[in-house]
């Protein structure tokens, strides 16, 4: 086992553990904080996979922006009630059972996974180009259309947030 593998195992175990905690702890604030930790782990994992730019995005955007938004909303809402009521629905065993069976399917399927096609972006190229530059180059040329659509999606997010969250005076 190489060091990388040890690291991976650490990341994997802690990520799974964190995820489990996120969906089980009672207090949503704790969940969010745990999620923050998880996101840092994920960002770390990305570094192993030559995705430095995305690791940064993960931290900045996900951890920095989205989760803060979550936290912000939670603060707005009434937490007290949440802390006294049940955290799971009555039928939670069903959910767990289905989740388990789906995971079995997935794991079984993945065990048959083999890569057949490979692209031309070898690690070497990316390394010479730097990840950000390589990404940017593709993003603004090849993936221009999705990029534009993404911008519109963000626009809608703004519009939607205003439309929905703005207090109406009726």
């Amino acid at each position, binding site marked *: 086992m190489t060091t990388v593998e040890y690291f991976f195992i650490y990341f994997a175990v802690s990520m799974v553990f964190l995820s489990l905690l996120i969906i089980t702890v009672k207090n949503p604030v704790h969940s969010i904080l745990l999620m923050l930790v998880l996101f840092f782990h994920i960002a770390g994992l990305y570094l192993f996979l030559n995705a430095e730019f995305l690791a940064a995005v993960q931290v900045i955007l996900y951890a920095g922006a989205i989760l803060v938004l979550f936290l912000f909303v939670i603060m707005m809402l009434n937490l007290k009630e949440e802390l006294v009521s049940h955290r799971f629905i009555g039928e939670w065993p069903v959910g767990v059972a289905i989740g388990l069976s789906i995971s079995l399917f997935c*794991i079984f399927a993945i065990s048959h996974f083999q890569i057949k096609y490979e692209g031309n972006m070898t690690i070497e190229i990316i390394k010479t180009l730097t990840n950000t530059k390589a990404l940017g180059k593709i993003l603004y040329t090849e993936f221009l259309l999705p990029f534009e659509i993404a911008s519109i999606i963000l626009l809608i997010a703004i519009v939607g947030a205003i439309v929905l969250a703005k207090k109406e005076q009726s």
Partner: protein
Amino acid sequence: MVPLNWYLYLSSVIFVIGVVGFLIRRNLIIMFMSIELMLNAVNISLIAFSHYIQDLKGQIMVFFIITVAAAEAAIGLAILVALFRNKNSINTDDIAIMKG
């Protein structure tokens, strides 16, 4: 070198944890976070693929997914706020007037 499958196993386990979280929690915010978990699981697998098949499209995809996730968060939370204003609750039990 870590085999690709390890990443995939990890990804699917987290994905399923997300699924389970969505299915069993009563709190809408936690459910929403479970969805974020699922998305992140997918991201992991995409980046892993991207790495192993030496292609950057996976990373681009992740980039877009994060963007969309942000937009979703904004809208989702806005809906949540609107709901909370009317209902004073974010428990799924309380948002079941429509059924049958």
